């Protein structure tokens, strides 16, 4: 693995990407069973929402070991916080432990060791209280295929203790939101993947939960449906709902998340905002220039330009890592023209989250079997 500069100590594992240190410090984990925050109404996202930026979920050395013939450490000593009002993305390849973290936080599994607070409640002592303030959309389909869209929502409305009047008002509203009003009385089993997913997502916030957990919300969906779902998630978040989502799609995280956490093999390897993570990339921007072939002295000259960090040339394509790429580009182009090189294409891009993920974890996100890159 690369990225050694981010390792600050064996015990605390990966911390300290720019200013994220304090988000991982154990002393910020509340020691008391219940924190002294008073809330009057747990159902509504209105005035009871804690001020944006305060910690709403705290994970402290959360560990889950599945004991079987061979013990599998699914989640390995994870500590972090999620702040109220943010969209927090848990990123990692398949099998990284994202779903297990979500399952522990949503009271579906008990940690082997460590603890977590969701809202003001500890996950093993107050699971009932947690269930009242969260909405969950699990990864695999949990709609009852024999019930219609309306009946599915009604079932959950009742389980979540909504009154008849609330359900009567809320269900048509939710169905309309995801464009399923005309399919309200059709069994969910007949829906397409996208329709099912949308129905499950609105089902998760039928009761205006304070915190919404979405486990791979757009897995296997077409681009239109994904964009639709992203729009709904953002709308909800704007209304004050804290959203925790897991994904292994980098574009999803880039579109939605205020902060992201990288998970690999059960461990949390980085937590920060996208901006800070990008800034932490040593390569700055990536500039790719297509040519009809250049002399080797050209690349050497290019690497001597101001702001240029690294230059590589292969098959006529020059790949340049540079700070502040757009400002550096003119001097690169003029150097090439001066050397009479024929430029066929120019692309300039910021490093993607995928690039950052690879840089930090040494692992590709979608191709775990491929191993380190």
């Amino acid at each position, binding site marked *: 693995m690369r990225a050694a500069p981010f390792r600050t100590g064996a015990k605390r594992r990966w911390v300290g990407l720019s200013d994220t240190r304090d988000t991982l410090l154990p002393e910020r984990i509340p020691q008391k069973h219940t924190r002294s925050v008073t809330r009057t109404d747990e159902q509504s996202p209105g005035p009871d929402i804690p001020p944006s930026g305060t910690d709403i979920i705290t994970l402290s050395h959360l560990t889950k070991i599945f004991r079987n013939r061979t013990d599998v450490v699914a989640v390995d000593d994870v500590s972090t916080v999620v702040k109220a009002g943010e969209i927090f993305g848990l990123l990692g390849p398949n099998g990284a432990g994202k779903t297990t973290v979500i399952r522990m936080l949503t009271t579906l*599994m008990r940690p082997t060791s460590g603890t977590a607070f969701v809202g003001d409640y500890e996950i093993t002592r107050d699971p009932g209280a947690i269930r009242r303030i969260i909405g969950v959309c*699990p990864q695999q389909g949990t*709609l009852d295929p024999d019930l219609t869209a309306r009946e599915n929502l009604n079932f*959950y409305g009742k389980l979540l*203790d909504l009154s008849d009047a609330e359900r009567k008002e809320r269900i048509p509203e939710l169905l309309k939101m995801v464009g399923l009003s005309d399919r309200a009385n059709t069994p969910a089993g007949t829906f397409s993947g996208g329709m099912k997913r949308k129905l499950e997502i609105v089902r998760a916030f039928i009761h205006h939960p304070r915190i919404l957990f979405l486990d791979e919300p757009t897995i296997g969906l077409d681009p239109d449906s994904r964009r639709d779902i992203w729009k709904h998630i953002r709308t909800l978040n704007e209304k004050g709902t804290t959203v925790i989502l897991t994904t292994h799609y980098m574009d999803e995280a880039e579109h939605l998340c205020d902060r992201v956490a990288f998970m690999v093999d059960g461990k949390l390897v980085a937590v920060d905002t996208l901006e800070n993570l990008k800034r932490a990339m040593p390569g700055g921007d990536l500039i790719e220039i297509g040519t009809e072939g250049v002399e080797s002295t050209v690349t050497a000259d290019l690497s001597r330009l101001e702001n240029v960090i690294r230059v590589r040339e292969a098959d006529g394509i020059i790949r340049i890592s540079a700070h502040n790429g757009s400002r550096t580009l003119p001097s690169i182009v003029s150097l090439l023209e001066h050397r009479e090189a024929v430029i066929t294409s120019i692309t300039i891009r910021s490093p993607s989250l995928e690039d950052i993920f690879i840089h930090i974890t040494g692992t590709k996100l979608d191709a775990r079997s491929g191993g380190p890159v």
Partner: protein
Amino acid sequence: MIKGALAIFERDLRKFVRTPVLLLMSVIFPLVFLIIFGNALGGTIDHIPIGVTQEDLFRGETPLFSAAMQRMQETETFDITLYRSEEHAKTALDDGAVYAAAVFPAPYRTGGAIRLYIDSSEYLIPSVIESGFTGLIYGLGTPADIEILPIYGEIEYFQFFGVAVIVLAIFTTTMFGGGNTIIMDREMGIIEGYLTTPVKRSSIVLGMIGSGTVKAMFAASIILIVDVLIAGVIIRSLENLILILFVLLMISLGITSFIISFASRFESHVAYSALVAFFNLLLFITSGAFYPHIGMPDWLTWVSWVNPEFYSVHALRCIILRGQGLDVVYFDLVMISVFSLAAIVFGITTFRRTLE
């Protein structure tokens, strides 16, 4: 083609070997069948409790009565109880304490017939009593007429069995409808959705038991109607019908609680189906549905005592075939309630409120 067939063949065998319950049940199933079926359906019917009395017994026993009493005490066919009067003997018969009541004529009624009242609602037992008793009297050498009086009229095996099938209907409906639902929810992952809501585990278990009971009642009522229309079972009055429905409700609740609580422990419906199919037959056979309970060996009788279906079948036969009331079936209902309560408590306390 061969390669494809081999692939399917291999996959299937691998799955079979990896399901220990299936493997175990496929061996144990036939063995238990042999033992249970063989003993439950082929037993010798003897030691039948019958009541004996004589008209005006206080005026002294007739030689016929004394000789018959002595012979009856010697045989293994009957376990006799002496009653003071015909009335007492018949009450015991009505209450199900004895299977028959033999009333011998008074000393002054020379040539009077012996009246043999028989509980005709049972299978095989009436004919065993009839042939055993007549053979015994004729063997005494004293000429005597015997008047056979089946107190519930002629009841065919179809009716005897038809009533018990109501219990089978309740069991199978719950097995497919109630037990499988709870497992399929887990297996299909539907449960993961509602376990994150504040619904209590008691609500989940009681809700399942409630809906299972309604489904079981529905199936039981259909079989009851079939029993009336086709088997010719008679419902005597509105009160009798209300009592029947009440007892059906109790049985449905009892058996449903039993199965739902059992099912809530399973992850895979394959293992559940294999075990429940086994229990279904074990419980039904030892319930006395096919063959009189009295014919079973002692060890199998013990299985009956802990079998809610045994009490259910008995209660239904009492109220449907014999027109008896709560005073006779209350013990059955108490036992069914005990089973229900134990099952509900077990079901709620052991229901896993997590995915582990």
